[in-house]
């Protein structure tokens, strides 16, 4: 079967150019992929769940403001600032969602990317359009990146708007105890979203690879979620500190560096490099797998 499939594949593009000359660059496939992600009701529900966290947080802090001693555990630094400035609702929401909710959303999307199409039987139609397999993969990755950015911005946006409405806007206090202007604070929040998006893109590449291995989207999603949790658990075990920096989740909370004063951007570099390394390794692995795979459904 493999021999037959691969023998046919190279003939595809050649035949297509003979019939219709496709434009050199078309966003149509990408747009249809975005529609596939953002048009699905289950993804709407997923995004709504993401948006619930900042809402619950705002209500909780409004009903019972944090005491003087922080008391919010690891998030105490930000929680104690919420009543001063609503922007911090967005930061705390991202801090809470980054270990669990956002990776679940990305795992669901990326796990579905290829296995979902294979499961529905649409993958072979897409490939027989014909769409080059490399292009298919790049489009899936790009759509995933857009989803990651949208999810992060949604959490931050709902948190910031609701927080500002309820708690108002005051000076933004950095972790170092210095005060920066509102505009600078907003800019830093956007940078936080950008950093987290890059982290999630790297994580999503793992999901895309898992998705290329199977025809069961839920299997790929669960596998990636397990990997995420295992990574977070290992990250919490001091005895494993030697391997911590190789874990995909290790640098996610480094976005906190953006709230120090002055910001040391050098401390964000390891996280960005880690995400890019995961993207390169698992993106290319997904490519190797997909382009050599028999697509039977």
């Amino acid at each position: 079967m493999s021999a037959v499939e691969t023998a046919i594949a190279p003939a595809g593009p050649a035949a297509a150019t003979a019939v219709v000359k496709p434009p050199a660059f078309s966003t149509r496939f990408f747009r249809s992929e975005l529609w596939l992600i953002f048009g699905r009701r289950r993804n709407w529900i997923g995004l709504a769940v993401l948006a619930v966290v900042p809402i619950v947080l705002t209500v909780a802090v409004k009903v019972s403001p944090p005491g003087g001693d922080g008391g919010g555990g690891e998030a105490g630094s930000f929680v104690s600032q919420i009543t001063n400035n609503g922007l911090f609702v967005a930061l705390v929401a991202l801090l809470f969602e980054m270990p669990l909710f956002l990776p679940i959303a990305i795992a669901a999307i990326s796990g579905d990317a290829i296995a979902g199409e294979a499961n529905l039987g649409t993958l072979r139609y897409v490939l027989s359009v014909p769409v080059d397999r490399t292009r298919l993969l790049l489009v899936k990755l790009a759509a995933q990146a857009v989803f990651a950015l949208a999810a992060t911005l949604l959490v931050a946006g709902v948190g910031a708007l609701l927080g500002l409405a309820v708690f108002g806007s005051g000076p933004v206090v950095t972790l170092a105890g210095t005060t920066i202007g509102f505009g600078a604070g907003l800019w830093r929040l956007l940078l936080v979203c950008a950093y987290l998006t890059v982290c999630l893109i790297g994580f999503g590449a793992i999901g895309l690879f898992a998705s290329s291995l199977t025809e069961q989207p839920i299997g790929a999603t669960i596998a990636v979620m397990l990997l995420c949790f295992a990574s977070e658990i290992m990250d919490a075990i001091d005895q494993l500190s030697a391997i911590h920096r190789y874990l995909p989740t290790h640098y996610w909370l480094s976005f906190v560096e953006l709230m120090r004063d002055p910001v040391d951007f050098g401390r964000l570099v390891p996280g960005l490099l880690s995400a890019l390394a995961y993207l390169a390794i698992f993106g290319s692995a997904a490519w190797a797998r997909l382009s050599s795979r028999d697509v039977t459904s």
Partner: protein
Amino acid sequence: MSVMARRPLVRWVVPGAVLAAVVGAGVVASTQAGASPDLPPRTAAQLLVDVYTARLDGASGTVVERADLGLPALPDAIAGAGSSTDLNSLITGSHTLRVWYSGPDKARVALLGATGESDLIRNGQDLWIWSSSGNTAQHTKLGGAAQNKTLPVDPSQLPVSPQQAADMILSALNPTTSVSLGPTTTVAGRGAYQLVVAPKDTRSLVERVTIAVDAQKRVPTQVQVFAKGSGTPAFKIGFDQVNFTRPDASRFQFTPPPGTKVNEADQDQNKAPGQGPNTLPALPSGKDQKQLPAQPSGQDKTMVVGTGWTSVLVARLPEAAAAPGGKPSTGAPASALGDLGPLLNNLPTVSGSWGSGRLLQARLFSVLITDDGRILIGPVSGQQLATVAGDPAAALK
């Protein structure tokens, strides 16, 4: 046809190559950290003079501290309620600090936690301690006397010629300490010489201390303390990244943000370890090791037995806390020892002609708490500590 059949597998070379490239880049980056660069030759004596005469105008950077002292896990109440940003939590684990230094009366140290930080800011006579997790600030107005103490070396007492300085330092160190030159190293991406300071007394638990001295600026950039018979440092502090330009003066200004609880503290009350003005410039300094017995000698209830690297500090515990063998003391004053009760009962018992007590054996030092309410601390083995406990000088009578 056979080429076609083989092709799918060939594709896996790409992710394999990417993986190899990523791992390779990581390995290259990590080997550069400890590389031995070629530096102009310099003797140990010259380096000592360099360190003592170097004037650090200003610096900023990131300091990584790692302590592996072999201590038992401390209860949360003592280790700082589990908060990674407590300034007292530096005794265990690994920590990252950002430091800014601009002369002895302008310094700022930020201890970075996962999602918070504690800052210590010294600006002239103002000393601020800021904690982001509690949104609290503590302010201390330092007196004039304290300001002088922060100078590590009084310039007026400096010897006139470098050679004289080297002679002075070496003769002071000579009875107890051997100083030699180690291999060059790289600290924070900069070439550095290494001084190896080792006790001559083999009873000391400290095997050697290596001090990296920056090849250009001639200031210590890394200190490692090795315990006896161990290849990895028990304590290490050094720059991860450093910049020797003077930081902007505004870096040392601190105004408590609105909504902050500000505690005004008197200078006298501010004697907690790690918070005194003496320890403020948390730059790695070659003189750190000898702080242990030096501090409380002014009080009646303490005594230093022995000299140099085997000196043992003997002190009398506050009455209420002095019940290590029995029940955990309930009425202890706010001292940490009250909470240590259950921990002490897990420690091995040692006894001698002087009585008996509990022994804590860490990698670099030992602590003996006797049933008659004394505490002995020294960089020596537990056996040695028990011998000292029998010394009449240590009886504190």
